[in-house]
């Protein structure tokens, strides 16, 4: 999730502290605190599964890029790596590199007219659908 959860939580800590002041407009305080509560709820929901989601997705993306063979081109090196550092920021950075590789791969595959390309394209859409399943939150707005 962007912005990153730790940065938002730090900002909300300051916001809540400022809203403890007694002379604030009650309507402004209510607005700030209700929004803060909604964000805290989202952060809480995302927290426990964040590392699991990223590890699972990175693994799936690496497998897809590895299976893409010739299509992968300069992104082939992405396929061979693995997640050894499980901090969220490092996993997220790897995820961003892999998803950038997936964009390049999908654009290449769309330009090819072969059964292999269509099969790979179908796998990419399947992975994209799964990526949204992994990111689903009950507190999402829509």
């Amino acid at each position: 999730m962007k912005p990153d959860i730790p940065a938002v939580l730090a900002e909300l800590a300051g916001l809540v502290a400022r809203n403890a002041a007694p002379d604030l407009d009650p309507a402004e305080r209510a607005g700030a605190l209700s929004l803060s509560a909604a964000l805290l709820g989202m952060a809480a929901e995302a927290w426990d599964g964040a590392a699991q989601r990223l590890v699972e997705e990175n693994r799936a993306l690496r497998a897809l890029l590895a299976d893409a063979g010739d299509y992968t081109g300069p992104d082939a090196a992405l396929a061979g790596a693995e997640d050894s550092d499980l901090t969220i920021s490092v996993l997220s950075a790897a995820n961003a590199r892999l998803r950038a590789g997936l964009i390049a791969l999908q654009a290449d595959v769309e330009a090819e007219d072969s059964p292999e390309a269509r099969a790979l394209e179908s796998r990419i859409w399947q992975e994209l659908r799964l990526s949204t399943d992994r990111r689903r939150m009950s507190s999402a707005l829509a």
Partner: protein
Amino acid sequence: MSSADLAPRLAAYAARRMPAATGVEVRDLSRISGGASRQTYRFRLTWTEDGAPRERRMILRRDPPVSLIDTERRVEFEAYRAFFGSKVPVPEMIWLEEGTEALDLPFSVAAEITGYEAAPALLWTEAYLAAHETLARNKWSILGEIARADPFALGLDRVMPPPEPEGCWVRELDMWETVLDADEAEPLPIARAAIRWLRANPPPPAQRIGVVHGDFRTGNFLYDRQGDIHGVLDWEMAHLGDPLEDLGWSLNPVWNFKRDLAGGLVPDGVAIGYWEAASGLRADPAAVHWWTLFNCVKGQAIWISSARAWIDGGNREPIMVLPAWGMQNPQDRAILKVMGHL
């Protein structure tokens, strides 16, 4: 600036704009929560004129330093003014101030429309359920009236550049792709795939150049328990273009509020029928599909630009994080749905 600091400066500005008034005061100034692209306040303006006390309820909308949607205030102001008194209900615009001397930032003042609701969540409470059909008919009929309006007769082409009918789609797609390029904080494979498809499968030219509200959806109009609509708000993304663009935004699945109905109210086909009857235009299914998918991309650009504004420190209000966290994945799923991959 706090409300306590703002009120006397706003009163001084109002006094300058009302030379026949004396004793001008701003009372009960309070900020309205929400409003990611403007700082919005309600207040009562009181004054004496011709020996009689007067009062009017007003809305102040002030530009924040960095907003969710970068727009020109004059465009929004002129759009409201063009439709005031028409079949498209809008609040009366009172003052536009583009300078920064009065309140440090540009702002506009409008009459407040009171007594109605805007919050989408209320629509699914018991008191409003019976009004869904009426509300839907009113909603898409008003959108059709916007599409029917002649922007040149309204003088809106003076502040909104008109595209050629065959160039509407590419101008909008270029603009929002540029926003994605500039603001994305992480790669967006689903939005990028949608953009490639949109460019490879362009829609037909616009049937006519019309006014596009740009953000016409449940939540941006004032309604009552009978399903009547009393004010269409949030014109900050108004521009001239293909009227189908607005229809596509209203059909963006993220505005279904987790129900498989347009706006959470009626099936898409029913909404489109109301729009066609009011606009006098045909909603070609392939064109509606293109504009709906385009609007999913536009939505994603808006959500990620709110994240960018927060990340860069230009606007650290929590309202900027809410759409970034709460809308980005639903918008990706909406793209998948519209493209037939969900």
